């Protein structure tokens, strides 16, 4: 493919001395023009906006980005802010639970689905449809189900089980589990589909060999098949992980950060201080910390995926 690219550059040779300028810019011109939106997105948005945000996290900008440089002052305040610390703890707790359970349940369901069951496509349809719904819809439905008086708790109490409690949405200590139930409902089906694709990609010779060796089915899954699905697992972890860092809509719809500030998350902190709090500097510092978190997740992954193999397309 690369030779084609070179060939299209040959036109530029008519110029007496093929200067660096022509060489770089005129070669393959239509493709470059066509790729302008992509270049603009990369340079202006992904690189430019990110640098802008990091820069303004070091200023004392309030409502408008006009502040002076103040060093790490915004970060000092951020790390001392209880709401931020609660948000981070929430995200870590929710994230760990969500990651483990999404992967675990996704894998379990995929294995069950892989047992040559009847109505497979019906089961898959049922498990995956929530993934088509937005977090807003997800949050609002579960908010209604978890309504303490008229929802599940009330209904079961009315059935005669007076002591039944399912007040997670209004209980500061349990509210993360309320988010988790809704989040899992939305996302497990997708993880299951990924895992199932992974399972079906495993060579049947492996199964034959395992059977010959008399290894029990469950052990074959855990110790042979699972390690072979590394690619799918890594993809799932990265997708679930980057979704967790962005967690925002679901919280807004389900709890709006409450009760109190017990279900606040970093993304909401950023949006609040950016707009209603009128403190751009503080919001940008928080956003930068979110970026750092993503880098901590992404860099090892990128290294494993691309760095080691030196793989380029």
């Amino acid at each position, binding site marked *: 493919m690369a030779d084609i690219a070179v060939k299209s550059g040959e036109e530029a040779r008519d110029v007496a001395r093929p200067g660096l300028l022509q060489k770089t810019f005129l070669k393959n011109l239509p493709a470059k023009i066509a790729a302008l939106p992509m270049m603009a997105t990369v340079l202006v948005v992904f690189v430019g906006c990110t640098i802008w945000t990091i820069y303004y996290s070091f200023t004392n900008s309030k409502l408008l980005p006009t502040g002076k440089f103040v060093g790490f002052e915004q970060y000092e305040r951020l790390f001392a802010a209880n709401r931020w610390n609660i948000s981070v703890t929430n995200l870590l707790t929710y994230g760990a639970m969500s990651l483990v359970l999404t992967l675990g349940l996704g894998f379990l369901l995929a294995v069950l689905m892989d047992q040559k069951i009847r109505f497979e496509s019906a089961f898959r349809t049922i498990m995956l449809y929530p993934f088509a719904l937005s977090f807003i819809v997800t949050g609002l439905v579960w908010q209604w189900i978890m309504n303490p008086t008229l929802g599940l708790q009330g209904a079961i109490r009315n059935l005669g089980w007076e002591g039944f409690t399912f007040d997670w949405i209004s209980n500061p200590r349990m509210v993360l589990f309320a988010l988790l139930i809704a989040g899992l409902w939305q996302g497990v089906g997708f993880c299951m589909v990924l895992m199932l694709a992974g399972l079906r990609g495993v060579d*049947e010779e492996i199964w034959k060999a395992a059977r010959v060796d008399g290894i029990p089915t469950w052990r074959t899954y855990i110790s042979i098949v699972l390690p072979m699905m590394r690619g799918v697992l890594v993809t799932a972890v990265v997708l679930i992980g980057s979704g967790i860092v962005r967690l925002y809509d679901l919280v807004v719809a389900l709890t709006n950060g409450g009760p109190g500030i017990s279900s606040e998350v970093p993304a909401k902190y950023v949006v609040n201080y950016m707009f209603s709090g009128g403190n*751009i500097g503080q919001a940008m510092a928080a956003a930068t910390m979110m970026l750092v978190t993503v880098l901590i997740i992404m860099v090892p992954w990128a290294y494993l995926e691309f760095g080691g193999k030196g793989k380029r397309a």
Partner: protein
Amino acid sequence: MSNTATMSGSAPAASGPAGEARGPRPRPFFTPKKIMLYTTLIFFSLYFLFPLYVMVSTSFKTMPEIRFGSIFALPSQINFDAWVRAWTSACTGLTCNGLSPGFWNSVKITIPSTIVSIFIAAINGYALVNWRFKGSEIFFSILIFGSFIPYQVMLYPLVIITRELGIFGKLEAVILIHTIFGMPILTLLFRNYFASLPQELFKAARVDGAGFWRIFFEIMLPMSLPIFVVALILQITGIWNDFLFGAVFAGTHNQPMTVQLNNIVNSAQGTPEYNVNMAATVLTGLVPLIVYFVSGKLFVRGVAAGAVKG
């Protein structure tokens, strides 16, 4: 294919006494293992289905029925009042026009955003595979990496950029934002797809002297229908379900359905009308659900598309 492998793998344990392994189906259905298997699957199915049931049944009830009945109960009769109210007269403040304006706003946002974002991504993919230039891979790598940057990091500068372009608070801004944030995954999708196509056709066209655009429109596009459908599914559901960008960039007059839904439910005054809330919720979920049910397996491919290749 691997179904058989899986089955044969589990067969000895599943079918109990030996000597049956070679026998033709049907095998006994009510083995303990099967019972456990189906019980678990049905248990999870209930978890997945319960909210849908609650949403729909609540939306058909009257408020007294909700207050004095159980969340499990079926509506005593199908009552469309809540649906009508959700669509035409549910309130956010003084304006009580229901969700219908939000629906049309979402349509106005989704259609152009989907078209523009897919078109640009298709060209990107094509350029990246067939017309590589110096630096194109670097751009692509940053693009993919960019898809993992939390939106909050780029939100404020984008407000400034759209303001400078004079489009903040208008449909154009939302379309631009969706095009930008849809670009990484879609470009990846098209790049992988075009790379999987036989290169001979492209080379032959080059020899014939066809240029960048002619090859794109006459050779590549006609071959890429399947991937277009996948991209379409991905974008329609993704953009329809968006909340953050609609809330920030669309302006008060173009708020998409998700934003209006959240306003109706979470900023309601007075006694909450759960039946109207649920009808509104179902209405908002309807478009992606229809896309999901109509597209079937393609949806699975759509959502898993970029993902599996990483």
